[in-house]
């Protein structure tokens, strides 16, 4: 029996790294401190290790060759970063996309595109989760469902006694159209129709309490909230960036993401503060960061002209697949965690699926299917917590081949293949 202390869980974006995993005979038999979601994410370590080409079993070499052929012969390939791969593997996948002049995207374009775009337009004031833990004397949970982030309260806030919080903290909970975070010192329920107006009014009041105000519930709520927030020294609003996860666009109503980042700025004129956005698991922010560092953009990159171009509106995986232009795709990661619409469209494209439990996932019938290790269970590496703090991932049990190694081989095959001649008309 082997115990791994300080293992990192990617079950949600909290990325708790205090899990003690017990392994017996290459099976995970315990994940102490993990929540139910975390325990399910670690599982027992048992993972399929199939490799298929056109539905028949194949060797890794055959499958990778077939994958390279497919990508090299495509005119509009797509590389898609799905959850549960390490940043090391993500970076190699970005290289593959660059090399074969593919489009490149990740799950964020389907779930948080508006948040990303709003952040690029105006910026954002944010903080790492340890600042929330140690400094946030007022916490505003904005329509956060605690069941989606089971250990947030215990690890980050409000439960820990913060280094700078001898006097404790106040918790405000806003539920949009329903119940939200509890328990809280103050609970407010607002209607979904009022969400953006309330956020906007709140930002206006925090910036200038004497601003011209409107009537109605939204402004009344905003005035009440503003009075409380201005009594704090370090105010953190916690909001789910993906409140409707699974829907075609789950970033909330139009204007919500923009209003949240404006609120984050407004928290800094008369007090200090930040907005922290919660993300689901599987190293999603890692994919954004890996793309940004090499391509300059966190999603929806188009390499077809030999340079990365940003196409956040018409070049997301969802948009490209819906247009029918994609003639080959490489999916890296766990397809079960990808937006259903994207997966449905990928099923109609000649596809290479390289990821954990690929053979048991929704794209198991793809042209090339390669089961890989799951990062943090069978494969080591690095992941980003949802606040961009990097954490190590460890191989806890042996399993299918590491995604990083397979992608390295694939990248070499793609890079050494004869290049297609690219005509301007062909690819525009």
């Amino acid at each position, binding site marked *: 029996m082997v115990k791994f202390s*300080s293992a990192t869980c990617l079950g949600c974006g909290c990325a708790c790294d205090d899990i003690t995993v017990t392994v017996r005979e290459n099976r995970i038999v315990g994940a102490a401190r993990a929540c139910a979601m975390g325990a399910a994410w670690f599982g027992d370590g048992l993972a399929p290790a199939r490799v298929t080409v056109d539905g028949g079993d194949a060797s890794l070499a055959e499958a990778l060759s077939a994958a390279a052929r497919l990508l090299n012969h495509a005119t509009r390939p797509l590389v898609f970063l799905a959850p549960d791969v390490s940043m090391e593997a993500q970076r190699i996948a970005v290289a593959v996309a660059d090399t074969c002049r593919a489009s490149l995207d990740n799950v964020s374009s389907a779930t948080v595109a508006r948040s990303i775009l709003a952040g690029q337009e105006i*910026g954002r004031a944010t903080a790492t989760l340890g600042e929330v833990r140690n400094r946030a004397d007022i916490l505003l949970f904005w329509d956060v469902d605690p069941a989606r982030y089971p250990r947030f309260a215990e690890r980050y806030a409000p439960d820990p006694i913060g280094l700078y919080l001898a006097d404790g903290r106040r918790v405000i909970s806003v539920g949009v159209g329903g119940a939200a975070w509890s328990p809280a010192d103050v609970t407010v329920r607002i209607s979904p129709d009022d969400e953006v107006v309330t956020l906007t009014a709140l930002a206006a009041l925090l910036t200038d309490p004497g601003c011209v105000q409107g009537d109605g519930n939204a402004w009344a709520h905003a005035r009440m909230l503003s009075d409380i927030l201005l009594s704090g020294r370090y105010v953190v609003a916690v909001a789910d960036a993906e409140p409707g996860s699974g829907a075609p666009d789950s970033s909330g109503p139009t204007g919500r993401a923009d209003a949240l980042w404006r609120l984050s700025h407004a928290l800094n004129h008369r007090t200090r503060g930040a907005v922290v956005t919660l993300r689901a698991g599987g190293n999603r922010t890692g994919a954004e960061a890996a793309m940004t560092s090499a391509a*300059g953009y966190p999603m929806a990159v188009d390499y077809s002209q030999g340079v*990365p171009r940003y196409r956040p509106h018409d070049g997301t995986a969802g948009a490209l697949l819906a247009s029918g232009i994609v003639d080959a795709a490489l999916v890296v990661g766990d397809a079960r965690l990808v937006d259903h619409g994207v997966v449905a469209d990928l099923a109609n494209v000649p596809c290479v699926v390289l990821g954990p439990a690929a053979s048991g996932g929704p794209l198991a019938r793809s042209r090339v299917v390669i089961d890989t290790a799951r990062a943090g269970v069978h494969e080591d590496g690095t992941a980003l917590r949802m606040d*961009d703090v990097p954490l190590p991932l460890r191989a806890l049990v042996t399993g299918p081949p590491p995604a990083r190694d397979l992608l390295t081989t694939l990248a070499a095959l793609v890079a050494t293949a004869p290049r297609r001649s690219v005509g301007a008309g062909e690819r525009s």
Partner: protein
Amino acid sequence: MSEPLRIVGGTVYDPAHGIDGEVRDICIDAGKVVADVSTSARRIDARGLVVMPGGVDIHSHVAGSSVNAARRLLPEEHAADPAPAPSLADGEPWPRSGAGGTVPTTFTTGYRYAGLGYTTVFDAAVAPLHARTSHAELDETPIVDAGFYVLAGNDAYLWQLIDRGERERARQYVAWLLGAAGGYALKVVNPGGVELWKRGLRDRVGLDDALGSTRVTARAILETLCAAADELRLPHATHIHCNDLGVAGNIATTLASMQALSGRRAHFTHVQFHAYASGPDGRRRSGARALVEHINAHDSITADVGQVMFGPATTLTADGAVEYLLYKSSGRKWVNSDIELETGCGIVPHAYREKQSVAALQWVVGLEIFLLAADPWRVVLSTDHPNGGSFLAYPELMRLLMDRTYRADCLKRVNPALLGGSALADGLGREYTLREIAIVTRAGPARILGLRDKGHLGVGADADVTIYTPNADWSAMFATPRYVVKGGTLVVEEGHLRRAPRGGRLHVRPDYDRAIEGPLREFFDRHATVAFDNYPVRTLPDRPVPTS
């Protein structure tokens, strides 16, 4: 490709060895400068060309979470400057495309530095919590040898040790911190000021102001970290971004900080931003002369200038309070990210314009510092990329230093509103020589950084060599080296980037007393959100630089 090489007949500038424009051969084998190579070695005909060691950038922002946050914030810059993959020689790693602008992508950063003849680069501000990200980004920044400085001046645990008077333990702690992060040197940013900004206190921090405790002051932080760097025998002194960046009258703060560390090794960074007097109207004036007189008179002090260059820039610093003020005054987009227990981060895009009085003053102050400095070995070139401008503006800066006619023409175009009493406006005729340029761009930074094998061309030096074609326009000459050799590999040939070897990692791992780990682990368990065992970076690509 690191084959024996003979660079024949170039005009060599190797100031570390007193070589000032002598015609000689440079021989290279196995990545090092050697005394001789066989007659069959490949030859580069450098007759009529200028030969210098590879450039060494002592202060830049190129790799890490904050840099990546800036990249993410600037899609419009990237769209305007797409960077196709270079056409590398056969057998090279597949080249990568990217994007430029003031904060280029990783691969593009490496290619462009090398294309400029720079072969060593340091990122000047990395939160140790984010060290893994910086290493990963340096891994994909080809060609240049690189490292980073570890932000320590607003570190919560260090402050606790200072508060308890445990200076010895503080030294052990920063030794651990450097090794844990895989950093090269200690960095202080606005000592006390970053933490106060996070606490919502916006007053200026005086050197002796109590920071929650009378024992914790900016002075104590500076003294503790500079003493630690000395006692740990770190190759580079503690790298200091003083309090009051950008503020009228901050020259007093800067001089007081220098005096506080009197006799200790200390590197003061982007001093241009810290050299403003205050005029009778309360507006900024040049404080360059007072600054330079102090530096000239104190051998233990080194500095880089942090020149601003007219054009686009991105301000990007751990000094979050400064960025808030810039956001408020400019109305441009703003990122702030507070980083638990360690530091802050702020980002605001910016542009320096000739007709803007403050930008004009900043431009003039930087040039004054260069032109008044008596010892180029101790006052070296930087733009604090991308804060004062991109590293791609270095050649233009060199021309400003070398060509007084050109400089005078440029001066005529700038807004004179704040230039009263400036030495430059009064006429500074100095022109940097090629020897002095070689000092401020390679030999000097290498010496200040304690890089024994860099910044010179003596036997045993790393074979990092840049070869330029002389040109009456110095800017054109320095922008387009004819050849660049990195670690013995010919990376630029006839002006084209042809090879892109992996760059090395420059880091230190000083010894420390393992007894500090117990209380430190306890601190982590109580206040950190990353497990103590998960905090240190475990594997790095190269061996640490010795610290003794």
